[in-house]
């Protein structure tokens, strides 16, 4: 941004020092506004970690390796193993990615390269609408439609890993679609035109040129989708079954970090509450790692 110095005549008309002080104050206020996000993160990290870090240290490695979760108010009387819960979070997330990525990527390619503009004008608001549906409404739909269907098809509880996969993959679709579409459209036209000029078909061009070129953006979208899936609470709370066990089939119930926290937070006191905050720390760290990977992947795109 080029700063133009007002000419001397204008300067002589300028306001007095009081006006300048006012400008400084405004600038300071705006600076405070700007650093509010940084402050917000510090606050969140401070409170979450102060709530759970000492517990984490006290519980040690068995917190992650034990499968027995019997929380009580006092540390000594309880069993604090969250291994099945971590596994549950990972299983539902990876399944959601496995289902959502092909569908989302396909839709993104469709939007970027194949769809006629009339269809595009219909589909893009549709994807935005999908992004706007509240998670509790997704959970509502899943509880009333998907869970009974899973129960009919596979027997068992219905509230299961598979039900989570289905609804979570739908919930991460908009993330994957919108970012991947942008990535594909950002590929320089010369790549596509060069490929077509050499005689490749549209699909060959998409497959061998566009997707690899947009690769890091697509990967970033998937990782962001992963972050959304692993952080999802309400829908999972309603359809996972909340059973602290490692699921032995896709129709078995499970629990995730988010759902377990939401389920027990209202009444947990003492060591139990600290344990939940410790789970929050675990969740937070997992998501930071994933976001970090996403940033690294999309930074590669600039090169």
């Amino acid at each position, binding site marked *: 941004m080029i700063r133009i110095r007002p000419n001397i005549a204008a300067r002589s008309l300028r306001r007095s020092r009081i006006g300048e002080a006012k400008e400084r104050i405004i600038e300071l206020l705006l600076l405070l506004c700007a650093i509010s996000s940084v402050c917000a993160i510090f606050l969140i990290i401070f409170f979450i970690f102060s709530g759970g870090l000492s517990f984490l240290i006290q519980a040690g490695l068995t917190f992650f390796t034990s499968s027995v979760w019997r929380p009580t108010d006092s540390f000594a009387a309880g069993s604090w193993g969250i291994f099945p819960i971590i596994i549950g979070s990972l299983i539902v997330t990876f399944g959601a990615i496995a289902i959502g990525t092909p569908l989302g990527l396909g839709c993104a390619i469709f939007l970027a390269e194949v769809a006629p503009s009339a269809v595009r004008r219909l589909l893009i608001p549709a994807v935005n609408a999908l992004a706007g549906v509240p998670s509790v409404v997704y959970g509502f739909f899943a509880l009333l439609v998907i869970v009974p269907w899973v129960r009919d098809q596979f027997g068992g509880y219905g*509230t299961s890993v598979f039900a989570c996969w289905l609804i979570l993959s739908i919930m991460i679709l908009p993330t994957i679609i919108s970012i991947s579409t942008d990535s594909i459209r950002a590929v320089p036209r010369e790549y596509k035109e060069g490929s077509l000029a050499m005689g490749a078909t549209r699909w060959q061009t998409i497959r061998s040129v566009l997707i690899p070129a947009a690769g890091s953006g697509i990967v970033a979208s998937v990782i962001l989708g992963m972050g959304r899936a692993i952080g999802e609470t309400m829908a999972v709370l309603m359809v996972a079954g909340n059973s*602290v066990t490692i699921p032995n089939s896709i129709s078995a119930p499970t629990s995730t970090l988010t759902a377990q926290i939401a389920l027990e937070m209202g009444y947990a006191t003492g060591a139990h509450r600290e344990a939940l905050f410790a789970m929050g720390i675990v969740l937070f760290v997992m998501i930071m790692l994933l976001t970090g990977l996403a940033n690294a992947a999309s930074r590669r795109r600039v090169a």
Partner: protein
Amino acid sequence: MKRFVPFVLVSLLVAMAVFGAGCTSSTNNTAGGAKLQLAGSTSIQPHAEALAKAFQANNSGTQVYVQGGGSSAGVTAVGQGTAAIGMSSANLSASQLSQFPNLKPIPIAVDGIGFIVNPQNTVSKLTLDQVRAIYTGSITNWNQVGGPNVKIDVVNREAGSGTRDGVQKIVLKGGNFSTGGIVQSSTGAVRSYVAGDSNAIGYISTGEVDNTVKAVTINGVAPTYDNIASGKYPVQRDFLFVTNGNPSGNAKAFIDYTLSPAGQALLKADGEIPITAVSHAPAHAPASTAAALAAR
């Protein structure tokens, strides 16, 4: 577009002003003022809401807020001062009392815990031992208790639930639940789950059993009003209102109303056994019930 900007800004300002006015018109939020906060057991919640509505009709100055969250949440809330009255369907535990030494439990009703199955399930009778075996994982198939050859879908409440606590104390005799069951976080959730899954078993307050589920008899005794009141039905517990220290102000007024004939009649109409109707102390009754009865 420019035309809309002032309109939007004005609406925002108006909205802010309205909320600001609402903010400053708040009179208080302490137990002695016009706002009474209850929190806790989802088994007690519907009854508390009915009591609140009736109470507010007679005491127009007080607003009674009823929140769920589970028995432990209610006790924690009252101990920390975020609620004036906690609703607990389990007796206060030693750790709760050591954490908040001034808690005062006041029994208001006796409630049975019914074990419910889907109406299509052919099983209608279970013994207490069978229920224990189901919930500790030794019995896993309905054909072991006289039903079809299909796996039992076990439904539990969350760990903070007073109902779960009651089942653990009375049925499991302090033992541990098996980990295989799923967890639903409220009375209504358990009921609607069991209503939808023909192989499920769950437990809810007997006052909440309706025709979407079927309550089994335990040791041949059905969870009827008379059986619970007389103590024949073994799985029962007290509903407690818990206060921090002796109740005062409108907390006391509300509790007095609950224990009055009008309040007790309301509870009875809702399917609970009013504490004043219990002429004996049930086998596992806590000292508080005996004392409350003695005080009458």
